[in-house]
């Protein structure tokens, strides 16, 4: 075996490198025991058990990645006012009006509530079929809605101790007045537009379903 001696490429440090470093914040923790000094400084975040021995180069984001900012790109078929069919979740099979894409990438939709009982809601693009039908939503102002408006705010519960476990959960989810007024504010201008188109309200109320001979790949939505 005659091998060629290969010189390894010169080690050029690339501009993007992750160096292991950590700013540690400490918290005072009470320690029991008479001879243990009472309190101890404990790091709030434990040091990782593994870190790479050498600096690790950070992969630069591709052009597509950098442009997306981590948010799903809106499909061309989905524009404000498009009627969408929800494919999963509580309202599967229902038709819904698309309002705008939220900063997280989710879609803001509304029934409207008076028509099919679907309130202002967030929906993931992947669980939606865009139809070619659309409604004029220029009269609707959806600018005040962001991701913070939605989402379960009761999630952070204080840790229960002792007999609190047996106490009843007082989380009764009431629909706030704010939600109701917001829903009306969005729906009323929408309803006037919908009522101008014949059968649009009935269309939004109707559910989508596949029947025996239908093949979704052959359907034009």
């Amino acid at each position: 075996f005659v091998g060629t001696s290969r010189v390894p490429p010169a080690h050029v440090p690339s501009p993007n490198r992750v160096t292991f470093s950590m700013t540690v914040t400490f918290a005072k923790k009470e320690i029991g025991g008479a001879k243990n000094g009472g309190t101890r400084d404990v790091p709030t975040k434990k040091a990782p058990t593994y870190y790479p021995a050498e600096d690790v180069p950070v992969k630069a984001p591709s052009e597509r990645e950098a442009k997306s900012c981590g948010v799903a790109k809106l499909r061309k078929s989905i524009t404000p006012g498009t009627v969408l069919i929800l494919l999963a979740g509580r309202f599967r099979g229902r038709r819904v009006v698309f309002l705008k894409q939220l900063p997280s990438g989710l879609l803001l939709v509304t029934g409207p509530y008076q028509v099919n009982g679907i309130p202002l809601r967030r929906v993931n693009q992947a669980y939606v079929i865009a139809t070619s039908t659309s409604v004029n939503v220029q009269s609707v102002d959806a600018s005040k809605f962001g991701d913070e408006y939605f989402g379960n705010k009761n999630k952070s519960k204080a840790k229960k101790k002792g007999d609190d476990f047996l106490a009843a959960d007082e989380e009764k989810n009431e629909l706030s007045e704010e939600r109701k007024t917001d829903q009306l504010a969005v729906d009323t201008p929408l309803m006037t537009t919908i009522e101008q188109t014949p059968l649009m309200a009935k269309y939004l109320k109707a559910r989508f379903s596949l029947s025996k001979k239908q093949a979704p790949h052959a359907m034009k939505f």
Partner: protein
Amino acid sequence: MKKVGEPCTLYSKGRILGYKRSKANQYENTSLIKIENVVQRSETEFYLGKRVAYIYKAKREINGSKYRVIWGKVCRPHGNNGLVRCKFRKNLPPCSIAGPCRIMLYPSRI
């Protein structure tokens, strides 16, 4: 709420034909599925990536249901006549062969 009797089929029906195989060897990590009304390779393009559910019954209830699911997804076409290869989270059991499965319409690309 949904009235009783209103149809709500949001999936395509499929049949599980067996595992990916040659004459004498089979590879159970991939199953072959025939989707109803799909007869050409060109028609399978719509279904690629879609989630597939194999649903079966069991005696013991889990989370209030006697029905259980094995989820998977459509990976690629198989052959020229509309068959499709699917990979499931857990390999499908042999008793599923010739049984039905559901090809959901999500993740949707239209």
